């Protein structure tokens, strides 16, 4: 796991504020109900910060954000490097 993925996991744990739940890079987040669609924007903004990429609207769907590993793969696929 990369340092950025670890930072994202810590961000998610703070966001969902549920005790006793452990998350790794492959834990389903959206399809398991841990993250609702209104929280996805927080993850996208964090992902943009961590990857230094702008992720355009319309290019990413909730299923692309279902796990931390998928999020980073999505950022690489559709993100535009910030100048």
């Amino acid at each position, binding site marked *: 796991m990369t340092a950025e993925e670890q930072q994202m996991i810590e961000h998610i744990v703070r966001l969902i504020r*549920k005790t006793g739940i452990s998350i790794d890079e492959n834990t389903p987040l959206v399809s398991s109900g841990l993250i*609702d669609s209104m929280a996805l924007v927080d993850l996208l903004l964090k992902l943009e910060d961590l990857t230094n990429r702008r992720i355009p609207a319309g290019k990413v769907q*909730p299923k692309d954000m279902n796990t931390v590993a998928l999020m980073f793969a999505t950022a690489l696929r559709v993100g535009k490097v910030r100048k």
Partner: protein
Amino acid sequence: MARFRNLIDALADAPGDRPFITAWIDEDERETVTFAEFRRHARAQAKALSDRNLNAGDRVVILMSQSIPAMATFAGAMMLGAVPAFLAPPNFKVEASKYRAGLAGVTANLKAKVVVIDDEFPEDMMEHVYLSEEAQVIRAIDGKSVSADVELPELEIRPENLAFIQHSAGTTGLQKGVALTHAAVLTQVEHLAHALKIDGTKDSVYSWLPLYHDMGLIACFILPMICHLRVVIQSPLDWVMHPETMLQIMTEYKCTLAWLPNFAFQFVPRRTPPNRWQQHDLSSARALINCSEPVRSSSILEFENAFSTIGLKSGALHSSYAMAENVFAVTQSDINSKSGPPRIWVDGQRFRSMHSVAPVAESTPGAVSFTSSGRLLPNTEIRIVSDSGAPLAHGLVGEILVKSDCLFTGYYNRPDITGKAMVEGWYQTGDLGFTLAEELYVIGRKKDLLIVGGENLYPQDIEEIVANHPAIHDGRAVAMGIYNPNLGTEDIVVVAEVERMELLADTVEIETEIRNLVVLGIGVSVRTIFLKPPKWIVKSTAGKAARSITREKLFREHPELNDEAGETKHE
């Protein structure tokens, strides 16, 4: 409008070269059709439907994502005199078999002849939309490839004919189809256009609202179609993941009107980084209308304070009370007001104990604030009644009943529930409110309904799933909506009894499984689950979980769950 006999005549009358719909995908991709192009596209869809033997009066279910082809298919069905209904397309969270069960219930009630899907419809869901020999599943044609006008047979569509069916809430057998005639829809739009002083040459609408929701369908598709306005649409998911795009689109297209549920008024400023606000300009907006959730002053003020720096005019934020059963709006705040909808402060103690409203000064300790949903549209009446149905005076809280010249004709094919909803020509909304100085204030609900992000959900749908978990006692689960001031909308909260006391030793696994089941079943996330020992939930005399008493008990045990009906002044 009323000068038209039906919605298709209204569409035919639109200036052909005026832009009608712009579908905004992202910064680099968007598509616009003029009214003439849209008509051509709709006729092509009509021909494709007609080739499948769809005739006047037949029902069509449209399971397509937010798009120009979806809207053209809807209009195309109406051109044949058929009766279309938008339903939510599948989202990846919901299990295919659950989606099918919900769809089958609705489609069977409609006795739909055709179900239309688009290319985005997932392959693995295909087998789940097959319903019966009678209901054919077809993919919408690519209307863009149609260059010439298709001739359709002459057909008389009368004002009293059904135009379409709107589905109000719920996911399974609870979902009700609101049947609306051309006359009712035209009349509603005429009233609303008058109240909003709509001008087809100057106004344009911004929308991320789903077409299967009355706000998305009526305010952001049918009204622009009848009043000949441009509407710029984007997908609800794209918006919720990038709320800043609302500012971007309104800036680019200088949109003047938008309808939004309450939570959006907090969501956009909170989820758009402040250092990017100045890239946008909201000076074109003349009415951003808070609708479909109880209106919260704090949400309106947050939006206003944030975006007055980027041109948002004072008085551009408005409110409305609307429901599918009245086609859409019942009230609309005064568009001429320079300060937006009135906000009042009332004595909190008196409000809670006597359900009566006594205005007080804002600085009064314990005062509760309410924001008006506006004034009645023309030819619309409301009555506030007690539990026994007796009319109440101004300033007293009771159930809101509505009567108007654009009320629905009934729930499609469901005389049983239509009869329960109507009393002597009045529609019983199940919402609670009061009137004061000709303004309607909507404060909550009498009926059990959760409104999350503007979407209506029945608690029964959630409770059934929760109670099916092996660790939960049958029938001992209660779902409720609790207002979350940080989100500006309700959170879904579930309280459920475990089968045996020892199961409470490790609740994390059970909670995780329940959360999972609810998402798979209906695609929504439960914010908090309270697992309680056996016999904790209060039962009614019929042996069912009593929701309101259980809710009160939960609040006593968990005072951190703040659930003021209004917004209390901090003392």
